[in-house]
């Protein structure tokens, strides 16, 4: 009797294998997305074998695009400059849903519980909050100040307590939107936080929200554990009287490196990285670097910080050794280095080199280049472990 059972069993096995070919059974923790800026496409990449797994097209204007991940690390939410919000399935490698949520958008965030994605907008301003599952609109928060004037919204992040925090560029305000409020949404506003906040970040523990100011020196700080204390100015008057250089590319604060008790941040319009002590929020050092820093990102172990630069120094990447605050390596990946992303535990870093149409992978221990991957005008690189990090 037994012998006759083998054939149907084999057929069942083969058909299972057939299924697996159309939808690979695999985890997503080593996947990521590379934005191809000019063609409106993204590449899905794998960091274990450093390979391109596929390309997805039709995502619109992806200049300045950013990506957030669902908490299961299966779906990428891609926020495009043209106001498009696209939900992409990394396993099936296809667009699940795409909505045009506004005229001109700049960034996104996903809530602590994973139920909401938020998009911040330049035109017409404001923040829109969507159901992460369906992309249906849940809430619309116009960014009108007291006088009714709309502001560009920048520096949108999530914070513990299912909150979103963001800054108003023209008005100079920081707002906190609480999605766990009994009414479904409560907004707390902090006015007069400083002139022209251009971007912001939140520390990995979700406690400190810091906005960089373009219109004046210093940073605006909100302690999320003690919001009653209000927004404080830190590093006030930094660099007063010094000549600020023209800024050809706004620094990004998203990757601000918080290395335990110090924060390394790009100085606006200066060839310096600032070191801020987090116990008293005072400047404790400055590290001279090759140009105006754009991204200042810490390797996951916080021992190294990697820096890229604005024009005309954007062919260079420098590595800072955090304990000694010295530059230990200068790399020249090529013209227009736009972004750097570490593998989950930091043994490698992926670097996008826009004008060379490629992504380069480096060993962060030896600084040897391990691989080059072709990509069409690559900009942002986003790996799925961001799914589990507050503020990313």
């Amino acid at each position: 009797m037994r012998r006759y059972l083998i054939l149907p069993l084999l057929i069942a096995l083969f058909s299972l294998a057939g299924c697996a070919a159309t939808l690979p059974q695999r985890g997503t923790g080593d996947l990521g997305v590379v934005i191809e800026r000019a063609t409106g496409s993204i590449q899905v990449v794998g960091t274990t074998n450093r390979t391109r797994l596929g390309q997805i097209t039709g995502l619109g204007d992806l200049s300045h695009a950013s990506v957030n991940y669902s908490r299961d690390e299966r779906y990428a939410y891609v926020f495009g400059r043209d106001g498009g919000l696209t939900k992409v399935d990394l396993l099936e490698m296809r667009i699940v849903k795409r909505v045009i949520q506004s005229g001109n958008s700049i960034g996104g965030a996903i809530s602590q519980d994973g139920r909401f994605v938020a998009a911040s907008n330049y035109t017409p301003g404001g923040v829109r909050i969507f159901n992460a599952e369906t992309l249906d609109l849940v809430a619309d928060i116009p960014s009108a100040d007291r006088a009714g004037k709309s502001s560009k919204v920048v520096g949108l992040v999530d914070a513990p307590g299912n909150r979103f925090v963001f800054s108003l560029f023209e008005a100079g305000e920081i707002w906190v939107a609480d999605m766990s409020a009994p009414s479904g949404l409560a907004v707390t506003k902090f006015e007069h936080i400083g002139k022209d906040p251009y971007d912001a970040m939140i520390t990995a523990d979700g406690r400190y929200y810091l906005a960089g100011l373009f219109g004046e020196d210093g940073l605006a700080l909100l302690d999320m554990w003690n919001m009653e204390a209000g927004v404080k100015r830190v590093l006030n008057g930094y660099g007063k009287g010094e000549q600020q250089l023209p800024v050809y590319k706004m620094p990004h604060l998203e990757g601000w490196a918080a290395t335990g008790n110090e924060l390394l941040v790009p100085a606006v319009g200066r060839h310096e990285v600032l070191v801020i002590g987090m116990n008293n929020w005072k400047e404790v050092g400055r590290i001279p670097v090759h140009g105006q820093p754009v991204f200042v990102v810490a390797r996951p172990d916080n021992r190294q910080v990697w820096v890229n630069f604005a024009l005309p120094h954007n062919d260079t990447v420098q590595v800072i050794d955090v304990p000694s605050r010295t530059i230990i390596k200068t790399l020249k990946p090529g013209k227009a280095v736009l972004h750097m992303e570490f593998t989950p535990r930091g043994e490698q870093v992926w670097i996008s080199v826009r004008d060379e149409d490629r992504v380069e992978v480096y060993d962060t221990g030896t600084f040897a280049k391990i691989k080059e991957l072709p990509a069409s005008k690559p900009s942002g690189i986003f790996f799925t472990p961001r799914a589990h990090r507050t503020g990313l």
Partner: protein
Amino acid sequence: MLPSAARQTELLYFVRQDCGSCHGLRLEGGLGVPLTAAALKGKPAESLRDTILYGRSGTTMPPWNPFLTEAEAGWIVQMLQKGLP
């Protein structure tokens, strides 16, 4: 004097990519204002050229004279006002 054909290609790329980081790849605006033909219609070319060369203080628009000659900035304004190809 018109920039050479090779330099023109370079400049168009530069405008899309590097001006695009503030003005949008499609120049429809971002942190910077829109630079589409419609947005620039009727604005004096010379003052636009000077904005490109010297920037606008008090705003994030930087001076580009380290990278562009007067003729090149003038040519960019012409292209912008016609609508970038």
